[in-house]
């Protein structure tokens, strides 16, 4: 009987366990003009680099990390202070997010940059109890409500508001005539987030709309059954709220079933990744996305363009999620910088004092320019950074704004 050579296996296991211990503690990048030199502050990063949502989570993480690196090497740090940015992948598994949070907490982090609905929801009460300002990429409405998530910030329009904007847009396009609208959403808290608010909006404003919702489950290979059911409703518009993968499937199915509908997407599906996957059926899809791809000429993103040049990359090639990550980090660190400038760095050694100061500074951010979309404005009653959002279109595989058409509700 052949046994796997025992000694070899034991040696390999031991090696796998010990491997990194000798490789730890790498070198810092050498100091140059614009490098941060003063005492560091620590911010933790929790990203989804593998597992669900990683197709959007990975470029977002790249954008955030790029900004921190830029800050430390060229941007002069946060008011001169270096940023320690321990970060890791939590694979969309809540226990890993929690232990990452705990580690950063112990390392003395004064804030967290997070990602999705799973980690943002799981950590919101903890962050509030620990005075840890949290900024993320999940735009669910409860996260932007200071009563439910006092220390969480959302640098974009909430899903509920996006829904309201789209419904108002539809009603204006149809000039108040009776319209049927179908809402296709991801079967998860992320996907169901705007549903109740959408229905309430229709009722409260007396919009003449028939509204039905259809869940897209993750195990389905396609959505033809749901579309068949939707056919009975004969919708003129389909609003989609999911990520790029399922949305591209839906677009393909709509095309193959020959349905004549206009498709509108919320910000995680109106994305150039959808165009890449779906091909021609995605052409002309409208939607909301506060962070589109850059052209490379935006003055607010000049620093990004210059930073990327050093490694030979071009800003115009970066995905919209990268731009979102860069800007999320940018607004966050600007807030922290403002807080340090106003209060002095001594208070930032301890989270108990630093947290509320950063919170206040973030809430005071007004009209922060991102270069690709509406300005970010936070308020103490509302931690959602945008109350209006641009109408975007997928054109030739790129995400572009429809001539500054700004949607409100």
């Amino acid at each position, binding site marked *: 009987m052949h046994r*796997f050579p*025992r000694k070899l*296996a*034991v040696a*390999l*296991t031991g090696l*796998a*366990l010990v*491997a*990194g*211990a*000798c*490789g*730890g*503690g*790498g*070198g*810092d*990048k050498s100091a140059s003009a614009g490098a941060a030199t003063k005492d560091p502050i620590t911010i933790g990063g929790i990203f989804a*680099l*593998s597992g669900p949502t990683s197709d959007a989570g990975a470029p977002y993480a790249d954008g955030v990390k790029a900004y921190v690196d830029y800050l430390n090497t060229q941007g002069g740090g946060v008011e001169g202070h270096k940023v320690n940015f*321990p970060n*890791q*992948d939590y*694979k*969309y*598994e*809540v*226990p*890993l997010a*929690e*232990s*990452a949070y*705990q*580690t950063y*907490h*112990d390392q003395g982090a004064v804030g967290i940059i997070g990602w999705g*609905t*799973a980690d943002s*929801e*799981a950590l*919101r*009460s*903890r962050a509030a109890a620990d005075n840890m300002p949290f900024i993320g990429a999940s735009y*669910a409405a*409860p996260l932007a409500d200071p009563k439910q998530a006092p220390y969480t910030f959302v640098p974009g329009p909430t899903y509920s508001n996006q829904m309201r904007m789209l419904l108002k847009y539809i009603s204006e396009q149809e000039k108040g005539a009776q319209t049927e609208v179908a809402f296709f959403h991801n079967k*998860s*808290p992320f996907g*169901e*987030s705007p549903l*109740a608010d959408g229905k309430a909006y229709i009722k409260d404003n007396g919009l003449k709309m028939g509204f039905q919702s259809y869940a897209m489950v993750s195990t389905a290979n396609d959505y033809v059954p749901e579309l068949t059911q939707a056919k009975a409703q004969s919708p003129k518009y389909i609003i989609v709220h999911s990520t790029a993968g399922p949305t591209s499937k839906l677009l393909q199915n709509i095309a193959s079933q020959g349905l004549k509908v206009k498709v509108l997407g919320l910000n995680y599906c109106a994305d150039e990744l959808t165009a890449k996957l779906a091909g021609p059926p995605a052409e002309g899809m409208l939607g909301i996305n506060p962070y589109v791809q850059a052209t490379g000429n935006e003055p607010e993103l000049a620093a990004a363009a210059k930073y990327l040049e050093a490694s030979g990359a071009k800003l115009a090639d970066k995905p919209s999620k990268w731009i979102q990550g860069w800007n999320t980090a940018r607004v966050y660190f600007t807030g922290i910088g403002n807080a340090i400038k106003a209060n002095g760095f001594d208070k930032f050694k301890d989270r108990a004092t630093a947290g509320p100061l950063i919170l206040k500074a973030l809430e005071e951010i007004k009209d922060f320019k991102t270069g690709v979309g509406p300005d970010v404005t936070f308020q103490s009653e509302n931690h959602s950074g945008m109350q209006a959002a641009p109408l975007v279109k997928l054109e030739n595989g790129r995400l572009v704004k429809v001539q500054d058409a700004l949607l409100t509700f």
Partner: protein
Amino acid sequence: MAAATGVYRTTYQADMTLRRTKAEYVRLALIVIALAGAPFYLSNSWLFVLNVAGISVIAAVGLNIVTGYTGLISLATGGFLAIGGYTTAIVTTRAGLPTPLAWVAATVLAAAVGAVFGLPAGRLKGIYLAITTLAAQYIIVYLVRSWKAVTGGLDSLLVTPPKVGGTLITQIPEKWFGLEGKSEHFAWYWVILFFATLAVLGTVNLFRTGLGRALIAIRDQDIAAEVIGVRVARYKVLAFAISAGMAGFAGALQASYRSIVTFERYTIDVSIVYVTMIIIGGLGSVSGSVYGALFITWLPEYIRHVGSGIRSGSAFGFITEQVVPIQNAAFALVLILFLLVEPRGMARLWQRAKDYFRLWPFRY
């Protein structure tokens, strides 16, 4: 006494004792000292990991009862944890009742559901039963996510932290042996340690009773067991109920500890992790479940620490770009290699180590 040449016992009581030799007592004392001293020396984040491992021990031991001792593969642990967690959230926050009551309700409800899903065990064997438990996992999580009566339409449910006489248990009163100012993880450590010890001792004692022996008989030769009078179907349901109840209790503890429940905590991956724990630890061994739970909880954290220690510029710089998949691959590799070295788990590995020293210089 267990001598190098065999065992020699003269009373039934001596036969059934848990600790026999001096060496075993010494090891037990060492463990007690280590457990008592750990929270004072560990950093908060490792204490947190230890607490999570402790909660996992409870569910892992429960799973070992039904899978290791009774031979029924269960992939529904995630679902039972969910029942425990959500019940606790609903009872403490929506009904406003005290936490211990919530824990009891969680355990009982989980045990009841476990019994229901254990009913098919009478007819189904092996992989067919395993897939039925897989179905149970999906159905329970689906209900917990979609049923408005449970979720109240929310993404996550808050859990009111447990109080003793009006103060949170995590707020240690002043002047208490100089312990004030310790974090909540410190307070929770003792609570979790208490319940984990209870679970472990309870299970070990279970398998000294007739019921325990009946379950083992069902695993080894269920038809013969039926013939000699063991009511197989009934005991199978009971095994499921006990295991589910323990998992439910673990879920309840976890919910109170983290104060928020989301369904992402209870997916099929979690069930698979628990099965991993008891296999790596050793099927049919309570101490194995403990080792397995500790190891599987600790391993990803260790890999993560190692991974974040690697930065560009160090000797392993090329790995930095791809740290994440390498971390995932490292975890899988450790699992596979471990099983190739010792398929019967850590308990067996430990047993072999003990035997080696006990019998040295002889081989057997």
